[in-house]
């Protein structure tokens, strides 16, 4: 699976495209509670799928491709920095947790969701020189955990059922 072949490249490209569409769909139905940044993180379904079916490197490429293209199409430089920090922390956490072999897709998805929020909050705290922003973290941990469970279950089903 590691050698370069067209099918693998195209499959990864489709996964990146699916991740982008999921992000876009999610942005159409924003969730607004007391705290900003609450998201389901549907795009993580695609990233976790790639992480299990291909590997860590491929998952990082798909995730970063999604972020850069979304930033180019809809966002700006500031949101790009937050997204990259969140995504990198989330990916590192998911890859390490998967290596331990002690958690299922759901556990990895929970860690991914919570770390994505944590990474964004830390980036915001540093960039805006605002330590107070970490007050948002408890709520974001709860929302990240709940969203992670949902995303993890969907991912687990897809990893089991989808044949490429």
């Amino acid at each position, binding site marked *: 699976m590691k050698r370069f072949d067209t099918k693998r490249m195209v499959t990864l490209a489709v996964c990146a495209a699916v991740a982008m569409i999921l992000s876009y769909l999610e942005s159409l139905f924003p969730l607004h509670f007391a705290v900003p940044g609450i998201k389901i993180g549907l795009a993580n379904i695609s990233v976790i799928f790639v992480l299990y079916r291909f590997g860590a490197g491929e998952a990082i490429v798909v995730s970063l491709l999604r972020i850069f293209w979304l930033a180019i199409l809809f966002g700006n430089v*500031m949101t790009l920095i*937050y997204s990259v920090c969140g995504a990198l922390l989330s990916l590192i956490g998911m890859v390490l947790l998967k290596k331990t072999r002690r958690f*299922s897709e759901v556990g990895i998805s929970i860690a991914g969701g919570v770390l994505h929020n944590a990474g964004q909050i830390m980036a915001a705290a540093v960039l805006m020189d605002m330590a107070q922003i970490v007050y948002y973290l408890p709520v974001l*941990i*709860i929302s990240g955990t709940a969203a992670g469970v949902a995303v993890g279950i969907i991912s687990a089903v897809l990893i089991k059922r989808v044949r490429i």
Partner: protein
Amino acid sequence: MKPLSQKYKNDIRLAVGLFTLAVIALVLLFCFREDGGYVSVVQDGVEIAQYPLSKEQTVVIPDENGDSNTLVIKDHTANITDATCPDKLCVKQSAVSYNGETIVCLPHKLVIKVVSDTQAEVDITA
């Protein structure tokens, strides 16, 4: 029903652990909160103004790109009621009145932060 595999047990432990941690943090934040005296307006990391929460007023905060946020102080709470940014996340955040609470507008690099009376005095004399 067959027993859950060890992996799923670990998943549940992780979820419950994170949830408990967050709830403890929330309870602590809730217990130690104090009424704020002033609202501090920080733009791009620099404090540009302070307004007392005791006085009802509406302030329009412009930035260098011609965008602005409207801050309303009423009933000892501060709230952003309007903004020229596309996502309006700052408008959707709830009103603040306790020490350390913030409203953040990322596109305009604007932070509205509640500070206590003593903190405000220190900042003014410093």
